């Protein structure tokens, strides 16, 4: 399993804007490189990233070649209620990873 690093504030006030940071381990091979013998190195990238907040999708990104290895994705959301963030990364060669983080909203 590829390790991921998630940074979500453990606590937030209702209505507060919070920053969510995610770092996923991935080589992000572009598919444009060749080996010394001329063969194409097949593309192997993360193609999609999704974040759900208590089941509701709040952020989605499509990823393409030319995004660096170990993509670091950060975004903001409004803390509305206590619960869970679910993260999902989908990619080439059947890559599928999930992670989650809890938040308490006061």
């Amino acid at each position, binding site marked *: 399993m590829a*390790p*991921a*690093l*998630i*940074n979500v504030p453990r606590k937030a006030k209702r209505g507060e804007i919070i920053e969510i*940071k995610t*770092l996923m*381990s991935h*080589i*992000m091979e572009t598919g444009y490189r060749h080996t010394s013998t001329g063969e194409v190195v097949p593309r192997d990238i993360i193609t999609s990233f999704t974040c759900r907040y208590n089941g509701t999708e709040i952020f989605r990104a499509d990823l393409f070649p030319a995004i*660096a*290895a*170990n993509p*670091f994705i950060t975004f903001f959301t409004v803390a509305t209620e206590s619960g869970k963030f679910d993260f999902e990364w989908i990619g080439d060669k059947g890559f599928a990873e999930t992670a989650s983080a809890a938040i308490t909203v006061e």
Partner: protein
Amino acid sequence: MKAARVIVMAVLLIAATSVRGDEIRPGERRSGLSFMTPETQAMQNDDTANPGMLWVLNGDALWNTKAGATGKACADCHDDARASMKGVAARYPAFDKALGRPVDLEQRINLCRANHQEATPLPYESRELLALTAFVAQQSRDLPIMSGTEPQLAPFVAKGRELFTQRQGQLNLACANCHDDVWSKHLAGSAITQAHPTGYPLYRLEWQSLGSLQRRLRGCITGIRAQAYDFGAPELVELELYLMSRARGMPIETPAVRP
């Protein structure tokens, strides 16, 4: 083309200045961290933004994974790395009595695998070896480097220093020509740093991966158009040892981030 010309010019400029052979004065020593942009510094300082931490997480898992014919994990002998490995990386490369010469942290891990786990050695720059090394080294974070103080190491430190000040390659440059003499200047757009290996293994944005000090040294040696030593070569370990003893007292930053 323009960039290539700038590099050639810079190299000529460096070649024109004589080797002063002066080591950097203790008060002037700076970690590579201080040469970087605030953005890259922020990346290193935030454990959830530092990609090197992905290898540390991997290493944490490997530490507790049984391997080899004896079916032992690192943790079975060394227990909790947070206690047992604290300060260890700050003393490496260290003298190995059986071999009669210094070994670096990667070699120590592979010796441990061979002697105590009866497992196959991990290849240099493999994800597993970098992960374990980063995990062990991270336990020494913020502790001062103590390498090269053992008396048996003195001749090897001297050999490393000799290599550091020895002109070599088609460009006829010694490490010291850049890293002792003109560290405040730039080579094309990049800062020439003081070559204090405080954060290895470290994440280089250029590599898009974690890499060892030996990888960095091989890159530099190729850059001066000399024949790079193979991974694990005694010369590279001696160079590592000299650089670490040169950085003695500076805090470990592993896993560092560099451009």
